[in-house]
């Protein structure tokens, strides 16, 4: 791992079962992500990209290999250390949003800050700021059930940013969204990228993948291709993604 690498995976494997039933969900993946970079991981369903993302974010442990994040070796870390790392250094965005149904938008956004031990006032201030940034300040007191899919995903992104993470990991963030909502989310990712936020986006949609700085393709648990994209997310996202007229 070098000084220019924020996140690094080396020979990462994830296997389930044994004998004839052995499944290699991730099979010897090497990957390095620089600070501020937006990386897309693309591949068909079941190719192991979500599993890889979970390993990179400390949600799951590799069967073999090493994972480093900001100088910390995740694969050797205890459960408590991983929790601390997820809290302070990683922000997750899920396809199914995973907002808490009984909490309002602002309560969902402030939750990671409260878990990190921030004062209720500071947590609320940060959440208000983030909701304002994603354009949902007027929906702060709404329950998730009263928000559209795109709005829910934007709230989830705001929640991922609550503790100013080093990296945001997004797992099919537009998988449940219509075109317009997808565009909103992509614009938000674009603004994050411009602000220097490191992003790893897992998707099976090539139009989304095309918005990244770099694209890696995965098949059967193995990285099969890597492409550096010149336009990246600094271009017109909607146009690149083919979502605008």
């Amino acid at each position: 791992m070098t000084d220019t690498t924020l996140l690094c995976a080396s020979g990462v494997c994830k296997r389930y079962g044994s004998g004839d039933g052995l499944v290699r969900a991730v099979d010897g993946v090497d990957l390095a992500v620089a600070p501020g970079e937006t990386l897309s991981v693309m591949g068909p369903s079941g190719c192991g990209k979500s599993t890889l993302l979970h390993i990179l974010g400390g949600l799951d442990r590799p069967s073999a290999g090493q994972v480093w994040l900001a100088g910390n070796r995740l694969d050797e870390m205890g459960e408590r250390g991983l929790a601390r790392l997820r809290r302070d250094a990683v922000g997750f965005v899920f396809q199914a949003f995973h907002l808490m149904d009984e909490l309002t938008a602002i309560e969902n956004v402030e939750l990671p800050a409260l878990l990190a031990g921030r004062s209720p006032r500071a947590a609320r201030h940060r959440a208000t700021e983030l909701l304002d940034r994603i354009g949902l300040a007027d929906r702060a007191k709404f329950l998730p059930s009263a928000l559209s899919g795109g709005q829910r995903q934007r709230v989830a992104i705001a929640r991922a940013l609550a503790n100013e993470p080093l990296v945001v990991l997004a797992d099919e963030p537009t998988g449940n969204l219509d075109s317009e909502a997808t565009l909103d989310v992509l614009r938000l990712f674009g603004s994050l990228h411009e602000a220097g936020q490191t992003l790893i986006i897992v998707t099976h949609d090539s139009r989304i993948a095309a918005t990244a700085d770099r694209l890696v393709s995965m098949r059967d648990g193995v990285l099969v291709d890597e492409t550096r994209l010149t336009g990246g997310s600094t271009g017109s996202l909607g146009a690149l993604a083919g979502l605008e007229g």
Partner: protein
Amino acid sequence: MGRVLLVGRLVAGNLRRRPVEAGLLMLAIVAATATLTIGLILNGVTSQPYLRTRAVTAGPDVVASVSPTFGGPGSGVVTPSSGGPAKPAPPDVAALTALEHAPGVTGSSGPYPLTWVTMQAHGLTVAAEVEGRGQASTQVDRPRLTAGSWLRPGGVVIERAFAQALGVGPGDSVTLNGRSFRVAGVAVTAAFSPYPQICAEGCFISGHLPGNDPGLVWASESAAKSLASSNEPVTYYLNLKLANPASADAFVNARNSAAPAAPFLVSWQQISEADGKLVANEQRILLIGSWLLGLLAVASVAVLVGGRMADQTRRVGLVKAVGGTPGLVAGVLLAEYLVLALIAAGVGLVAGWLTAPLLANLGSGLLGAAAAPSLTLSRVLAVLTVALLVAVLATLVPAVRAARTSTVHALADVARPPRRRGWLIALSARLPVPLLLGLRVAARRPRRAVLTTISVAITISGIVAVLCAHAVFDQGFGVTNASGLTNPRTSRLSDVMLVLTIMLATLAAVNAIFITWATALDARHTSALTRALGATSDQVIAGLAAAQSIPVLVGTLLGIPGGIGLFSAVRDGATMGYPPAWWLILLVLGTMAVAALLTAITARIGVRRPIAEILQAELA
């Protein structure tokens, strides 16, 4: 027919998938139904040992007595007041012997002199009632020897329950008012209730004797008379046989009078009833205990069914997706629990039937034990009805809710939307992380929290009621009396209450496991998400423990006055007692610790599953 077969297959499949839950559920219903069975069948079995003893010992139909007159016999223990006459008037023996010629009397024995003394044996100092008897056999009341021989010079015979409490037998030495006697034998009689019930029909003893529960000792007539003192003058007893023993109560009622010098009469039915008082208390305690256990069983089943529904949502969706009607879904759930309830009720009936004779045995003071009482159809139906009611009450709402669940939602395994309590969420934001999580988990399912509170309150009420009873025992009605002598009555009650307490605590623990498991299951997604956002497993476990602790604490605090009220309501005129504060403090702390431990264990099992797997499962 095909529909019944399908329901049967689905029920069998469900039971096979969750054998431990089925076992715990059955345990809850077995405990409730067994206790109820014992309580119901104890009624009416108590007279059997007395009747047998009465037959073997030629027991009297009426026992009459006359006492010196400075108080009224028949009103319990009478202590002469300090301001009373210095020397009491002698008993009116002529009035007593006149009863031998009363209409309907066909035989008699006595009158026998009787007095009360201080007795010492094996280092214990107790009160004893000494009845003077001859060596010859009598027509009425022939005490049956169970060990040793009948009276001989310098010897005494001791009533069997009293002898056992003292730990004496033939050959041992005892002292009566300081005079030494050798125990010649041990015997039983139907003329008096066995120790410690001997004064159940009234005794005439002074406050100079140790304790209020004398035991019976037979000595020669001359010895009995010589043991009398100015404090304990001689009283005379006469045993009567009637032509129609069933009329004894009427005979007694017609002749008992309020005049202090008049003979005081007691019928054999009254003695039998006094013998049965012990079991009557046990019966009352068991019936109350069975209701408490029944309520706990309802809570167990309700939580279990609710928890299983959370776990079976997708299965319900599948059944509906392949054509299962809402009625079929509800039918499967109801049938599953009704079958378990019926099996458990059967086991409970048999267990209660086999256990009842042990509790119905009136002890060593009588011959023989109560035979295994028959299970009448009405009792069987009562127990089965209670078991089925438990199952239906607890299952109906979840079954109907499952039947009405949208198939699409069920297939997607969407959990019921949680409740939102805005003020609780705002309050929890100011608390440490475990309390923040705990309060929010508790607020999500208020009905479950209420169920926990009720379950704990019932258990603690039962335990506090038992503690109240023990507090009364400790005030002088104890398992051992002031002399250190074992009191078989309170000892047996204490044993029954201990068993009930253990059963209540066991069921409460089962409930705690059910509730925690259901809570952990319901909160699995929230817990996984919270962990993904940075909470540690320990914080999540502590949060679940906190979520349980709040209703447990409320239930415990409600259970304390509940238990005191329960004891007050069922004590039936007995002394009221309150457990010391430190017992209650220990009870609260112990309950909280046990609940926290059980929750922590269950929750730790719940958080073992990887976060990613749980979150991914929501998408599957």
